[in-house]
C-alpha cells in the first residue's frame, strides 16, 4: 500500500465565497473525506487558510500571501492510502474543489524514506 498526497489547486485564490457557500463546500468535503475514511484509506490532511500566508523569495523578499503575480494557490491537501495511482486518482475525482472552474487536484506519490526513493 502506497501513500499519495492529493493537492487542491485553486485557479483564483482571491475569490471570496459567502458563508453559506463555504458551509456547503465544507459538508461536501467532509462527505468526500468520510467516504475515503470509511474504507480506512485516509491518512490525514489539512486545509491551508489564506490569512497569514507569505511568499518568501531570494534575497529576503517577502510578500503577503501567494496572491499577486502568481494567481494559482493551494487550498489544502489530504493524504490517502491506495494500491495504485489509479486508485488515488479515483479518490481525487470526488474532490469538491473540482466543481470550481480551472481548479485541479494534483496526485503525487509520497516517498517512503526507505533509501530507495
Amino acid at each position: 500500500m502506497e501513500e499519495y498526497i492529493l493537492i487542491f489547486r485553486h485557479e483564483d485564490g482571491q475569490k471570496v465565497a459567502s458563508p453559506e457557500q463555504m458551509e456547503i463546500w465544507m459538508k461536501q468535503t467532509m462527505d468526500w473525506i468520510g467516504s475515503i475514511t470509511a474504507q480506512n484509506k485516509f491518512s490525514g490532511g489539512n486545509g491551508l487558510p489564506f490569512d497569514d500566508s507569505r511568499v518568501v523569495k531570494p534575497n529576503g523578499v517577502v510578500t503577503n500571501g501567494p496572491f499577486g503575480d502568481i494567481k494559482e494557490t493551494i487550498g489544502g491537501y489530504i493524504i490517502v492510502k491506495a494500491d495504485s495511482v489509479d486508485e488515488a486518482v479515483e479518490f481525487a475525482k470526488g474532490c469538491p474543489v473540482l466543481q470550481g472552474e480551472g481548479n485541479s487536484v494534483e496526485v503525487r506519490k509520497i516517498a517512503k524514506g526507505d533509501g530507495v526513493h
Partner: protein
Amino acid sequence: MEKQQLIPHLFRTEYRKITSVLCKRFGIEHIEMAEDIASDTFLLAVEVWSYKGLPENPTAWLYAVARNKAKNQLTRNAIFSEKIAGELQLHSDRSVSEIEIDLSDENISDSQLQMLFALCHPSIPVEAQIGLSLRILCGFGIEEIADAFLTNKATINKRLFRAKEKLRLEKIRIVFPDEIEIDKRLETVLTTLYLLFNEGYYSESQNEVLRNDLCLEAIRLAYLLHENDKTNTPPVNALLALMCFHSSRFEARKSNNGEVILYDDQDESLWNKELIAKGMYFLSQASKGKLLSKYHIESSIAYWHTVKADSEEKWGNILQLYNQLLILEYSPVAALNRTYALSKVKGKMTAIPEAEKINLVNNHFYFMLLGTLYENVDNEKAKMNLQSALLLAKSDTDKQVIQKKLLKFEQVF
C-alpha cells in the same frame, strides 16, 4: 429492607468502599489483604446478625468491624509491622495502636477514585483492568465477572491474579495522578469505563440483570469522576452523556420474551425521559473547553438517536458526526454506520456503491448493511447478503435478528 436482601445490598455498596480505603492505607501490594478483611467483615456480619439481629446502623457496624480487623492485622503481623507499619510510624509519628482507618465519606470517595486510577493503569491489559474494577470497585463476584466475559471462573481468577502481580511489580501508587499527567491517565480510565459499559450494553450474556448492572456500574464510576473537581473534565461528561442516552433505551430494546427489538421498531414511549434529560445536561457540561474527544462525537450521535422521527436535520447531523468520528479514529462499526446515515441523507443508490467499497467481507454487520440497503432496490441481492450475514454471525442474538429479516423476505416477496 429485609435482612436477606440487606446483606447483598450492603455488599454491593460497602465492600468496594472498605476495600478501597484499606488498600489505599496498606498500599497496592497488599490489595489481597484489603479484600480479605472486607470479605471477612461481611462473613462476620452474616454470622452475627443472624442470631443477634440487625444492628441499629448496619453500615457503621461494618466500618467498625473492618477498622478493628485492619488494626489487628497491622498490629499482629510482625513482618508487616516492620516493613509497613514501621514506615507509617516514621511518617505519622504514631504508634500502631493509634493508627486511624479513615472511613469518612470524603476519604471513601477519594480512595475509590484513586483506586480507579491505579486499577486502570496503562501497564495492565484492558481486560484485566475491567475485571479488577468489577471485582474491587463494583463488588462483583468472580462468577459474575466470568459470566459477563462469557468465560469460566478459572480464567478470570488467573487474569485477576496476574494483574495484581503486575500492580505489585510496577509499584503502582494509589494517588491522584499529577496535574500534567491526569488527562492522559483519565484517557485510560475512560476507555475502561467505556468498554465496561459496552460489555453490558452489547454483551452476549443472557443474564439481563447482570448486563444492566454492568452499565449502571460504569455510569456510577464515571459519575464519581464527574463529582470530583480534579477529574470533572469535558470528556468525562461526554462519556456520561453517551451512557445516559444509550441507557434510556434499555426498557424498549427487549420484548417480553427476551427478543431484541431493533431501534426502528422500538416503542419510544418506553424510552427513559429522565435519562435523556440527564444526558443533555452532561452533554452541555461537556461542551466547555476546546477538546473534542470521540466521546463528544459519539454522545452527539447518541443524542440525535433520542429523536425518533426521521428528518433531514437528524440524519444530516449524524452523517457529519460520523465523518468526524472516522477521521478521529477509524473503526469498522463507525464506517458501516456512517454509510447507513449516508443512505438516509442521499438515498440508497448513492449509499450502495459506497457500502460495497467498504468491503469488510468477514464482518456480518457489513452484509447486514448491504441487506438493508438492497431492500426494495434488488430484493434478490438483499436476500443473498442477509444469508452471507447469517453464515458469519456468531451470537444467537445476531442470528435471531438476521433470521427474522430473512423470514420477512420469504413472506413478502
